[in-house]
């Protein structure tokens, strides 16, 4: 009772709590591009650099729970990736498949592998040479987001296209 009374005497505090709640909701949006992930400096990277790929193209796509289907938003990202990778052919490509923690370890290794393969197949269908592409699954062993709720799990269900061999 005392606490409620104190709050009603402090309308500013109520407003503050309300605005924090709104901010909390907004931050739970699933990030879909490098910019959403807070990788700033878009446009600053020199074209054809690894930074250009990560920042301007977007190196990762996200999946629905227990799914390896390439979502519409991910198709857009992968099409951009394919175009860029076809332009800059000096890079070798490893696609990492990842799962969130809401599955058992061995199953998630298999699920991560399936996501990496689906991503690879999409890029190959867009003209990227299969010879440049390797896949690896990390299952749920390498989360990028470490909270215990949906906002993190959705970021961890991902396939990341990593490139190496710049300048060769």
């Amino acid at each position, binding site marked *: 009772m005392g606490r409620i009374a104190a709050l009603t005497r402090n309308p500013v505090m109520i407003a503050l709590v309300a605005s924090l709640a709104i901010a909390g909701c907004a931050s739970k949006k699933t990030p879909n591009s490098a910019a959403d992930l807070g990788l700033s400096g878009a446009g600053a990277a020199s074209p054809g650099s690894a930074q250009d790929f990560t920042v301007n193209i977007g190196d990762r796509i996200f999946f629905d729970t227990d799914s390896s289907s390439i979502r519409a938003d991910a198709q857009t990202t992968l099409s951009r990736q394919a175009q860029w990778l076809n332009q800059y052919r000096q890079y070798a490509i490893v696609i990492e498949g990842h799962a969130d*923690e809401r*599955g058992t370890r061995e*199953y998630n*290794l*298999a699920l991560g592998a399936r*996501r990496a*393969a689906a991503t690879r197949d999409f890029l190959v269908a867009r003209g990227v040479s299969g010879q440049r592409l390797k896949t*690896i699954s990390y299952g749920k062993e*390498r989360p990028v987001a*470490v909270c215990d709720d949906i906002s993190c799990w959705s970021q961890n269900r991902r396939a990341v296209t990593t490139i190496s061999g710049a300048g060769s």
Partner: protein
Amino acid sequence: MKSILKPLLMIVAMALGMTAAATLPARALVELNVNKGNIEPLPIAITDFQGGDALGAEISGIVSADLKRSGLFAPIDKSAFIEKISNPDATPRFEDWKVINAQALVTGSVSKEADGRVRAQYRLWDTFAGQQMSGEQFFANDANTRRVAHIIADAIYERLTGEKGYFDTRVVFIDESGAKNARKKRLAIMDQDGANVRYLSDGRSIVLTPRFSPNRQEITYMSYESGQPKVYLLQIETGQRELVGDFPGMTFAPRFSPDGQKVIMSLLRDDGNSNIFAMDLRSRSTTRLTNSTAIDTSPSYSPDGSKVVFTSDRGGRAQIYVMGADGSGQTRISFGDGVYSTPVWSPRGDLIAFTKQTAGEFQIGVMRVDGSGERILSTGFQQEGPTWAPNGRVLMFFRDSAGGPKLVSVDLTGRNEQSIPTANFASDPAWSPLLE
């Protein structure tokens, strides 16, 4: 394969002669029926073993802790003891033990032999029948006093329950340290009670899912050390390692066959799905057991080697299937409301333990081998990966809470849950057979 294994232990067991009291006609001996649904823990008095300075109390402490953690025994606080045992070989004053409701009494002694070995002996007494139930002595080298205590605890457990114990065993597991997004994972081995931890890998590569060979000397596990995740064999004592098979893609989810001659595992297909293969460790020949455009993984043999239980999502979501060891007759056995994975066949052959995800929670449960009689033993926010104690009465698994995973055991009643102390976070426990 060259074997330069040194004997882990020299333990010689001898039965101790019965004392005069043992010649009394036997009345109904104290015993525990572990098949009863609701087990009242048996009150037992475990006296400090005589001699050996602090060693005597240490041994009785380990015996007491083992029996207590089983959930079947209630060791009585030493401060309640009336008779002070001075000669562990003499018939105790049973009245003094009955009055504190000790239904069973353990006396014992420990001493150093001239050759440096430790000699430990125990006697188990039935206080109400007024007679000795069993007695044995053991010789062990100095480094194995904890093992002697576990062996004595196993002998008491077996005498009173009629079933083999599981205390003289080890657990391989993954020791985890560091932040969640940069976890260092090391292969480690310890006694089943968390003592004597030893590291078997340096933590530079991710290692996962270690499993014991039935011969107790080898582990199969998965490692990222070559870049691609692959299944390896490790000789525990020598540290010698080798790759299992020469497959193009990821191999994972390994387990030994009951005869130790084969490793069964998943192999990633080029289309992104996973199938189950068995590899003969002598001939190196491989046999494909499943061929589905699905995830088939987590295979585990029945103890007679004739069948394999595994996880597959061929029906849409992960469920448990059973097939012949040649891949024949693949049949779904789990039909409950949820997703099932990590099936493990009980060493007794009667049950399959599993992880089930339902309603946002993870459950550890058991079902009969035809999928009937599902029972959930433990429910939590994030837990998985059961492994059986060699007597098929207890499961160990890992539970993620407070920032990382820890090991937990639960018995088949589901009522006796115990945490296993580890210095760091720990996951993927795999129980050894009883040591030899």
